């Protein structure tokens, strides 16, 4: 049905390694795109669409990286980040957001976000950033 133009999607050059990534965003268009992109790159993706679920997933799950939106129902991304810090979660967090607020960027970076991606995003670039923030050595599972 779809005429494939034959370009392999994953061109980050990394073999799929089964890293677990948490995506927290309430817009279905965004989560769909991200899921498809990350799964094609070989990652194991979990999606949540509100802040409370994101917090719980981060604490209870076993993730290597989180992509976190700021404006979500339930709990804001900043709050989720802060609570994750308190719980001492081990993974890095990349924040995605459409809000053009410099103060917010600074706040989130100070809260420990390792990277900040604004919407609209470039999937290729996002994949590279994801790869960079994943732990190099993974603990035995």
């Amino acid at each position, binding site marked *: 049905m779809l005429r494939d133009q034959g370009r392999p999607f994953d061109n980050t050059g990394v073999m799929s390694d089964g890293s677990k990534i948490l995506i927290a965003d309430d817009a279905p*268009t965004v989560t769909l795109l991200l899921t498809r992109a990350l799964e094609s790159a070989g990652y194991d993706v979990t999606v949540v669409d509100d802040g409370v679920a994101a917090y719980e997933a981060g604490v209870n799950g076993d993730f290597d990286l989180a992509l976190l939106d700021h404006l979500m129902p339930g709990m804001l991304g900043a709050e989720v980040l802060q609570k994750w810090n308190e719980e001492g979660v081990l993974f890095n967090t990349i924040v995605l957001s459409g809000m053009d607020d410099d103060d917010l960027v600074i706040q989130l970076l100070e809260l420990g976000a390792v990277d900040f991606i604004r919407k609209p995003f470039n999937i290729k670039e996002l994949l590279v950033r994801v790869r960079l923030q994943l732990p190099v050595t993974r603990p035995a599972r």
Partner: protein
Amino acid sequence: MITNPEPLLVALLAAALISVVLSVLLFVIKYAHRRRLRAAGVRRALYIGALGEMAARNSVPTAEIQGWRDDPIFLEVLFDFLAIVTGDERETLEELIDQLELRDRLSRELRGTRRRNTKLRTLSYLAEIADESLQPIFVECLADPVTEEKLHAARGLAQIGDPETVSLILDQMESEETWVAARLADEIIEFGAVAAPALVKYLLLSEHDPNRDPELLRQVIRVIGLIGDLRAEPALISMLESPEPLVRVGAASALSRAGTPESVPGLISALADPDWRVRARAADALGTFSDGRALEPLGRALRDEAWWVRQDAAKALATHLGGERRLIEALSDDDPFARDAALSQLGIRGTVSEAQQRFEVGTATGQDRMILAASEAARQTDDAGAVA
């Protein structure tokens, strides 16, 4: 006195009839609306899935999608996706748009309709996917009396990015209400650096034109600031001395984004401006350059009579490389407002709480103790907290 009751009976029957008819109509409308929404929801999910798949695989489909292009929900979803991706995915979507001949279809719809609703919808879509072929349409719609159309048209022109069109938008801004001019200015920002020469030219011309609206000038300056093109800097620095306070405010604001250390002397003079807004903006702008020349003037600005100026000066000092020391010095200033401004910044920055922590652990320095003493003293000022 009591007239023939016949007309009353007629009125009664009419009222009763109307109420029944309206009730039935409402019920029918709700029912139809609901079915439509349900169906729309299903289609929306379908489109999200299909388009997402398409974008992710960078592959453009063939026949199936042609049938979808008349569905407004499909267009909505398509444009939702367009708004969140760049790079390869966007290219894929653009290919799809080309294949569906969306620009042509939407343009034809735009020209062929008289309904405001449709005009706005098609125009807003066209603005998202603007290319040179659409420029004439946008120029035409720019002159439309409906504000929303103007804004979409301006956006379209900005997407295309032809610097010649900037002056057209500026013309529109002149004849419009302030808030419309401000929104149009917002759209000019999308042009980016290519708009800077036209804007600067506008600024320079207006210096010699006594009839130019200062509010409009301020908008233009604001845009220049947001675009951040350094070519504008000399003009902005000279605007710091404009007789119009609004222009000075705008210039100081703009320099915080479009300035270099070249502008520091001008900003330092602006710290003494009679209008508090200019002083506040100047302080804010100086905070972006850690320039040694600004330390003393900012320290003095802590004693300014206007609250915002003091706060901005304190904030500027807080981000300045040598500023924190100056703030700590200000804690023992004899001006209570200066003390308060310094303390509030140090509190926000965490300096006070860090001093507190060190105090508790026993590693407090003399400076820490001074900070804590100052914050205690501030806490004990007038219990009502009211400060004139």
